[in-house]
Structures are given as C-alpha cells and as structure tokens.
C-alpha cells in the first residue's frame, strides 16, 4: 500500500489529537497549532487528490486489523480528497480573516478552548467526508453538532446562547431521526458499512422484501440531515446563530458545517442506498419542493432584514435551497451542480461574512444598514470584497455563482417535469438576490462625508486584506476555470458507485 493512502487517516487523527493538545496549551500556542494543523492537512489532502487523480480509482483504508464488515473503514476518492482540501482552504481563510476580531469577542482565557473546538470540528468534517461506516458517521455528526454549538455560543451574548439552544434542539431532533433511520437500516441489512448495506439493499429491492421499512428508513435519514443542514422550514435557528456569533464561527458554520451534513447525505444517496433506488422514491420530490420554497422564502426574509449579517445568514437559507433543488432533480447533472454549488457557496458566503465584518468595524461595530453608509470608502478592501461576493451571489459571469446557476439550469433543462418550476424559481431567486445584495452594495458605496467613523488603511490590516484577496481569487478561479473542477466532481461521483 502506498504511503499516501495513509493520509486520510493521518488527517483525521492529527486534527483530533491537536484538539487534545490544545487543551493544555496557552492561547497563542494553540493558535499556532491550529494553523499548522490546518495547513498540514490541506497539503496532505492536496497530495492525496493528485495521487487519486493519477491512479483514477478510490481506495479503502482499514481502521484496525480487521477487514470490511468487521472493522471500521474509511474510504478516499477524488471527491472526498477534493472536499477535504477545499474545507481546509476555507477554514484556514476564515480563521485568518476573523483572527483580529477574536480578542474583542471572546474572553482571553477561553481562546484555547476556541481552537480546540475548531480542531475537533475539522476532524469531524474530515471524518464525515472520509467515513465508510454509518455509525461512525453518526458519532462524528454528534461531534460536529456539539462543536458547532460551541462555536455559536463562544461569544456569550444573549442572542447567541438562545440561538445555540435552538440550534441544539433542532440538531438533536435531526440526530434522533438519523439514528432511528440508521437502526431500521441496520435491522434490515445487518450491516453498518456503507458498501455492504448497498449490496443488501440491492438484494432487498430485487427480491421485493421489506419495501416499506426501507423507504421509511431512507426518509428518516434524509429528514434528519435536512433538519441539521437548515433546509427551509427548519431554519429558525440560523439567522441568530450566524448573525451574532464570532465572525470566524459564522463563516465556518455557514460554509462548512451545513455542507458537511449535505456531503454526508450525498454519500448516503450514492454509497448506501444507490442513486437509482433513491431516485425512484418520492423523497426527491419532497426535497425538490422544500428546496424551491427555501430559495424564495430565504430571499424574501433577507430582503426584509435590516442587519447585514442576518441578511447574509438568510441568504444562506436560500442557497441551501438551491443545493436541495439540485438533489431533487434526480439526475447526475443536478447532483454535479449541487456539489459545485457547495463549493461556490462556501467560498462566497465566507467571503461575505469576512468582508461584512470589515465593513461593520469601520461603522462603529453596528450591523445596521443606516450606519454602514459609505463604509466601503472607509475600508476599501472589504468594500471591494463584499462587492465581488455580491456579484457572485447574483450570478454575474466570471464569478463562481454564475457557473453554479448555469449548471443548475443545464441540469433543469434535462428534467422534463421539473424544468419550468426550477428555472422560474431560479430566476425569481436570482432577481431577489440581486435586489438585496445590490441594495447593500449601493449603500456601502453611498457617500457619507459626515459619518463619525474613521477609515482604516491597508497598513492596519495586512493579514485581513490578504485573506480577502485570497477569497476573491478563489471565487474568480471557481468562476473562470470551472471545467476541471466540474470534471473532477463527475469523476468523484463515478468513483462513488
């Protein structure tokens, strides 16, 4: 076995272990450890991605001395490695972009706890990405949930704690349903390993046995993960959680945590149930409808919002709706579009959060639009970055948002029954997006010479500006050279089967 094949295992264990180490380190050292770990894991994932692209096939890695149905396993393919790499990049940039705000938001003595949470969150995300075992997935979903809750309420104002409670309640409902579905699945197939379950499910379907419990189990797992990833009717906790937590937390939560669950759902669809069987159920129609509703209602709530960060948070609801709409189409193209949208949305949304904090900083810390007037003149880098993020969200060509919309539309054109609905809602949602994002952009570029706030120059925020530039580049790269990435996603999905 090639040494590179150890990398997924190393990255999971490294991030877990670094969490433990951070518990005895002072805050400064914990920060360094955190950064180094993210970089190292990112590098490992990049190498792994290259290796997998060159070999062209996925591999299975035993976690222990025992092979498939007895021991735990993890599995790495192109999509997994790519996701891990992408998660590391976004996480590093989000952490670096919010680092200067941390001392003001979190009590000094709790900084190292913050880094522990981030490390454990990363490890759980990696485990969700790589795992090949449903129960392991459940355990790491719980780690993910708890550490996300920690990240929400580490800034202890009333709103975040309330949001954390709401988040926990919704998440626990979700985990309960997920676990119940899992148990039924285990009862029917006798396995917990994804590949074995898939085999048994195929047999059951072929023999026509246990149809109803099978469908119920799949439905329960799907609903559980939908609840956890804040699909439209279950999004009540989201605006408070994203709007008031620390800036890095908001960026990480919106761009990574919900995406981890969505990626798990993709894995379940492909690796546990089988894409064709999943599409033959009515579940995709439900996902489709809720996705469409999310797209519209999320945007409408965002328009009504008067607080920039809550507005961005509501826009997340709409974007998650896009992803589920892609699932709901039930075609390979829709799936590719959804996965691309995961990437594009992660890059854009964290950019928006990080840029928004730069703007609010030069407006006396207020999130209200009225105070943000002219903020882009006071912090030019953040203003430019916010504009880029908005343009990407609106779907202007050259930025990542356009490509994902293009992919969605192309996918929609191929599905006869759902074509019109998805295209029309896509259009409405795009225009609504344009309304609230452009409103904000105009607001921050409106001239307010008598604003009582001081501007900030490049010299005072070098690291921050560099992060913003990286984010903008990431967006443009996704928007301009999307073809290799789309190919890679296709290849990765092919490896799933």
């Amino acid at each position: 076995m090639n040494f590179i094949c150890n990398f997924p295992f190393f990255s999971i264990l490294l991030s877990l272990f670094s969490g433990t180490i951070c518990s005895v380190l002072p805050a400064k050292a914990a920060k360094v450890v955190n950064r180094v770990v993210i970089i190292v894991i990112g590098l490992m994932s990049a190498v792994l991605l290259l290796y997998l692209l060159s070999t062209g096939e996925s591999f299975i890695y035993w976690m222990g001395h025992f092979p498939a149905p007895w021991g735990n396993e993890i599995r790495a393919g192109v999509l997994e490695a790519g996701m891990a790499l992408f998660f590391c990049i976004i996480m590093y940039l989000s952490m670096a972009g919010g680092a200067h705000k941390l001392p003001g938001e979190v009590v000094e003595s709790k900084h190292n706890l913050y880094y522990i949470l981030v490390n454990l969150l990363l490890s759980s995300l990696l485990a969700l990405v790589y795992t090949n075992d449903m129960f392991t997935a459940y355990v790491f979903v719980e780690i993910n949930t708890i550490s996300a809750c920690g990240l929400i309420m580490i800034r202890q104002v009333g709103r975040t704690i309330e949001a954390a409670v709401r988040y926990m309640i919704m998440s626990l409902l979700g985990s309960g349903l997920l676990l119940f579905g899992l148990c039924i699945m285990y009862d029917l197939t006798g396995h917990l390993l994804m590949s074995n379950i898939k085999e048994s499910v195929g047999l059951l379907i072929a023999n026509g046995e246990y149809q109803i419990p099978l469908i119920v189990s799949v439905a329960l797992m799907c609903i559980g993960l939908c609840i956890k990833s804040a699909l439209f009717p279950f999004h009540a906790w989201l605006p408070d959680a994203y709007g008031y937590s620390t800036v890095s937390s908001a960026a990480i939560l919106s761009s990574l945590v919900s995406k981890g669950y969505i990626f798990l759902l993709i894995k379940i669809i492909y690796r546990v149930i089988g894409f064709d069987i999943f599409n033959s159920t009515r579940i995709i129609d439900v996902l489709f409808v809720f996705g469409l509703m999310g797209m519209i209602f999320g945007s409408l709530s965002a328009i009504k919002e008067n607080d920039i960060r809550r507005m961005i948070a509501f826009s997340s609801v709409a974007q998650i709706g896009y992803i589920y709409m892609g699932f709901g189409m039930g075609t390979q193209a829709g799936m590719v579009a959804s996965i691309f949208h995961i990437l594009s949305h992660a890059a854009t949304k964290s950019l928006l959060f990080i840029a928004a904090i730069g703007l609010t900083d030069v407006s006396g810390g207020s999130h209200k639009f009225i105070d943000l007037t002219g903020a882009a003149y006071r912090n030019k880098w953040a203003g430019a970055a916010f504009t880029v993020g908005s343009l990407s969200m609106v779907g202007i060509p050259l930025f990542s948002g356009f490509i994902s919309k293009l992919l969605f539309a192309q996918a929609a054109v191929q599905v006869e029954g759902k074509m019109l609905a998805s295209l029309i809602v896509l259009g409405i949602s795009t225009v609504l997006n344009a309304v609230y994002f452009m409103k904000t952009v105009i607001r921050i570029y409106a001239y307010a010479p008598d604003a009582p706030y001081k501007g900030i120059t490049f010299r005072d925020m070098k690291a921050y500006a560099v992060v913003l530039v990286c984010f903008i580049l990431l967006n443009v790269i996704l928007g301009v050279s999307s073809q290799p990435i789309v190919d890679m996603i296709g290849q990765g999905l092919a490896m799933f089967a």
Partner: protein
Amino acid sequence: MYLILSSILFPILAGLFLLVRYRTPLSGEKPVDRQSLTAMAGCSLIITAIFVIAALFAEKGFTLFYLAQSLPIYFRVDSVGRIFSLLAVIVIPCAGFFSFEYMKHEEHESRYYGFYLLVFGVFNALCFAGNLITFYLFFELLTMSSMPLVLHNGSKEAVMAGLKYLFYSLCGAYAALFGIYFLYRNCGSLTFTVVDGALRASAITEHGGFLLVVAFVMLLGFGVKAGMFPMHAWLPTAHPVAPAPASAVLSAVIVKAGVLATIRVLGMFGTDFLKGTWVQTAWLCLTLVTVFMGSLLAYREPVLKKRLAYSTVSQLSYILFGLAVMNDTSFTGSLLHVLAHGFIKAALFLCAGAIIYRTGKTRVEEMRGIGKEMPVTMWCFTIASLGLIGIPPTGGFISKWFLALGSLNSGIPVFDVLGPVILLVSALLTAGYLLPLSIHGFFPGADYDYGSLQKREPCKLMTMPISILTFLSVLIGVFPFLIIVVIYLAATGR
C-alpha cells in the same frame, strides 16, 4: 486579436485605475487633482477610440478562454458589430469631453470617469462578442457598470432610479439567460450567425412551438434594455436623475445594447424560423404600441430630459419595428436609424445638459427665449430635432424612409400598412413635442423681456461636441451610401 483585446481591456483598466487612484477624499484629506484627472480621462478616451477604430478592421476572431466546457469567451468583429462600435466610438468621447466642463462642480468626478471608461470598454466588448455567452457576460457587466452613472448624484431618487434600472435589466437579462439555456441545448454552438439561424433542424421539427416561446421570451428580455413597451418604465426614471452626458450615453449607446442583442437573437433563431409566426405578430404589436405610446407620453411631459427619455422609448421601437418586419430593406432602415438616433439623441441630451448647466432650467415652459441666450446650442437642438422628426436632408429621413419602404414591401397582412401609418403619426407627434421648444426659444413672443437677456453661451468644450454630433446626423442623411454598403454586408451575413 491584440487590437480587439486592447480596445476592450485598455478602457476597463484605465477606468479601474482612475477609480483606485483618484478615490474620493475622506473628510480632511486634500481634494482630487482635477486637471490630471480630466487629462487622464481624456487621453484614455482618445486612445481607446484609436484602438477601436483600428480594431474595426480586424478580420479574425479569437477565443480568450473557456468559461465552462464548450462555453468559450470568443471575440470577433463583424459588420453589425462595426456599426454599433462606430456609434460608440463617436458618441462616447464626445459626451466625455462635454462632461469635462459639465461635471466641474459635481462630486466624485473620479468615480464618474472611472465608470464612464468601464462602460466604454464593456460596450466595445459587447460589439465584438462572437457568441451568445460572451455577449451575455458583457451585457450583465454593462448593466453593472452603467448603474453607478445613473445614481451618480447619490440622492434618494437617484438611488431608487438606479435600483429600478438594475431590477428591470436583471429581470430582462435573466429572461434572456433562460432562453440561452435552451439555445445551448438546441444549437450546435452559440457562435453568432446573421440570418441563417443556428438551430438544429431536428430541434425545429421536434419542439418548434416551444422554441417560439423561448424566442419570444428572449426578445422580451433583451427588449427591456431597449425600452420596449411592457418594461419601458425604467428609462424615464433613470434619465432625469443621471448627469446629462451620462444620459446622453445611456440613451444613445447603452440602450442600443438591447437592439444589438435583438439582432443577435434573431440571427441565432434565423429569420426564416420566425417569419410569419405569432412571435412576429406579437412583437410587431408591441413595437408599434411602444412607438405610439412613447411619443404620446413625450408630448405630455413638461420636463425636458424626461420628454427626451420618452422620445428615446418611441424611437428605439422604430428600430425594433424594422427588425421585426424581417426583410433586408427594413433591416437597413433599422441600422441606419441606430446611427441616426444615436447621434441625434446624444446631441439633444447634451443640449439639454448645456441648458441645465448654464441656466438651471429643466422644464420646457421655463425655456422661452433660450435661443436668444444660447444661439449655438439651440441651433444644434433645432437641427437635431428636425432630424428626429425626419425632415429630408437629415439622417432621420433616410432611415425612416427605408423602414416604411421595408414595411410596405413585407407583405405582412395589416401591419404592412399600419406600420407606416403609425410611424407617420408618431413623427407628427415628435414634431409636436420638439419643435415648440425651438419656436419659443427663438421667438419668445411679444411679452418677452429683452432687457433681462444675457449671453449664456457655454464654452467651446461644450458646444463643440454638440456641433460635431449634429453635423454627423446631417452627414449620414446626405451621404448615406457608404453606410448602406456596410449595412448591406451586415444584412447578408458577412
């Protein structure tokens, strides 16, 4: 290749440079060095114009990069593009030089010039775009970069007008994008053709009816930019609040992007596919309604710039009508009218700007005796008005002649006669809303107080562009043949 690229990239980069270099000073900083700013902007405009004129003779197209699989960003110069960029290359620098004087006392000059140059570059790219996806890209960017010009003065009405402009344009662009998805599936490639159409034969036989719907949606969507009837409302809102040179560019050049888009869409579907279908009928109805309604509204409008804006709505639909008739004669008329209307409307708006700049008067009834105060400006205004009405030696006459001729020869039932009649009525209305200004301007009547009269002629920097544009509008009326040759090439697909 490099000429095309530089004609696009140079103004964009120059605009960005101006935006970054001469940023609006914060309170307490020293103000922008105005002279170097205008010098810089002027040089950029001239250099860009030279680039564009050179690029007009480029032959080969090239692909810049691939946006996604089989979606190249592709540039090519063809005859239609040449005509539109010819318009841009004359009007934009003229209005630009006009604005050096006009914008003297406004704030954020650097922002204005920066976006002005951006618009120039993006419009060039739009003219030279070789396929639909490139076109769409720059169509969106044109909206984005022209919006700051609309809301330049930052008042609440201006911002609302800018948002309205944005909202209408995006809705239209999305409707068009909706069609592009289908074209992408039903065409071999999205590269432009002129008349034959790029649809696969199998696609036409299989879902021809559906493709007609798509065509109609695309025409409506791009028609928004050209101010076609149901979605024309943004024009009269956006024009009065924008600075006069910006409205000139908006009205003379940017709305023409909608026309260009319509020509491209027609080319993609092919006139044979659309001729005689309900799409043509509906489109003709819409354009004629717009022609008549625009004139009528302009006739009732007291604010000069708003009146001109309604006039733009009406005149643009002349062009669209010519395209909707779908034969060579009317096509020639349309393209001629693109040029004629571009020069005339730019001249009219600049005149209006000069009047506002010197006297501060915006409403028509305040402008009695204005011809005595600013004779050069008002003479230009009068000549341009005659052109817009279509009095013989001017450009407007030739283009309308071709339009009417094309319509009469088209053989479409009802519309072949109805069209010219409505055009005639509208021309009369145009006379009705433009000439009184000149008449009252030069002949203020017996009770006019000549004692308070003072010479208020603006400086050369303002009158020169106006004169040039007026002169050009007459010139294409007198010597239309060179242009007709180019247009003929365009119509036959070279």
